[in-house]
């Protein structure tokens, strides 16, 4: 039913969302943990910085990323001095842009979930000689599980639906940076509404199924614990 280029775009979007969500979990967990526990005066500053990507319109954020990735930009000079290829118009560039763009959607649910973890419980575990990793995996993770689920869903869905940032730094290269949202937009702009409808419907159904599966899984997991 769909064209080859559409399947390519769908696959690329899923790959991007998957990679970004995995990396974000690794980055966001320590940030969220620190934000939920720290009494430091720097906490509000970091909190505000994490929320900043929400403020700028995605195309504007994308524009500044494009400027930063250019030969005279911060990221461009960094990659150059490290002997790496420039980031613009590459899948790696999209991953980095998406991490920045989706960061608050992963950090905030985790932060809220971590706040619910009782400090006394952790201290009790510590007196029983449980190391920090053991405490994290046996106490924090189970308690914060719904928070992790929300973070994964939001991070994944937000990256899947990402458009403005990718549009600005991607360069619309099939199989590399032409994600599904850009492909749908292209159809709409080319007035090929039929194809746009098909692809949008496919994306909606697919996303619904993924979200549904995650929530069913979560419900089961929660009931098992109780």
């Amino acid at each position: 039913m769909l064209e080859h280029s559409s399947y390519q775009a769908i696959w690329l979007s899923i790959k991007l969302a998957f990679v970004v969500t995995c990396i974000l979990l690794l980055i966001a967990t320590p940030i969220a943990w620190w934000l939920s526990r720290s009494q430091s005066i720097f906490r509000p500053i970091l909190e505000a910085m994490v929320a900043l990507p929400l403020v700028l319109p995605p195309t504007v954020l994308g524009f500044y990323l494009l400027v930063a990735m250019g030969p005279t930009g911060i990221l461009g000079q960094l990659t150059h001095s490290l002997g790496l290829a420039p980031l613009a118009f590459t899948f790696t560039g999209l991953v980095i842009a998406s991490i920045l763009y989706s960061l608050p959607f992963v950090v905030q649910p985790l932060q809220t979930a971590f706040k619910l973890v009782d400090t006394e419980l952790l201290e009790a575990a510590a007196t029983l000689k449980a190391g920090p990793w053991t405490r994290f995996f046996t106490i924090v993770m189970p308690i914060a599980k719904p928070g992790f689920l929300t973070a994964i869903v939001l991070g994944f869905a937000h990256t899947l639906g990402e458009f403005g940032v990718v549009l600005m730094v991607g360069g619309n290269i099939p199989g590399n940076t032409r994600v599904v949202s850009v492909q749908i937009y292209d159809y709409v702009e080319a007035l090929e509404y039929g194809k746009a409808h098909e692809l949008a419907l496919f994306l909606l159904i697919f996303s619904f199924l993924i979200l549904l599966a995650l929530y069913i899984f979560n419900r089961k997991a929660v009931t098992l614990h109780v």
Partner: protein
Amino acid sequence: MFKKINLVFKLVAVIELCFTVNISHAEEAIIAVASNFSAPMKALVPLFEQESQHRIQATYGATGKFYAQIKQGAPFDALLAADEATPQLLMDNQLAVNTSQFTYAVGRLVLWSNNPALIDGSPQILSSERYKHLAIANPKLAPYGLAAKKVIANLGLTAQVDNRIVMGENIAQTYQFVQTGNAELGFVALSQVIKNGKIELGSYWQVPSELHLPIKQDALLLKKGAQNEAAKTFLTFLKSAKARAVIQSYGYNL
């Protein structure tokens, strides 16, 4: 008492006069304008408003979006499109006034780089290994992109260039790719890089217009504005020598 009534009558007469003047002379039109034409439009509107009582409100955007909005009843009186296909389509869909379509500007293509040493006034660079990314507008969406594709094909360079092409959704984004240096060079609109009649920054090759079909930008009066004097007068003004001189100074042919 008599005086007071007289005064009221006079006041009513004055108010009435205001309204009649408004209706018969000064009207306001909302005109949808292709983003690539925003700079000349901003120069043209004050010129027009100097010699006319009518007022123009311009909205800038992508032609494809305007088409979708007009189909859904957007309140635009006229459209200055970035192509000739969209106005034609509006005509076919009976959303525009018959015979009102005309070409108000013809876009010119230029191969441009923000590096002053890269392009030597010829297309030679295209076949070299001295660049990684060539930016063009998406040929499926933007007439400038289609023209760029045609130029590359006519130069016989498709195979050498194809895997280095990055596409902007429109010509504005294509310009950003090149301007920020992420793409070393790209086919952009002359109107984007021309200042005071010449290209002052970077290096370029002015593409001869024989290498591609003319990038015609058409304007037309929409059904909504069929009775709008401001829109009609503005479209006539666009064809005047005065307006054409302004349009040309921004890098368009006519």
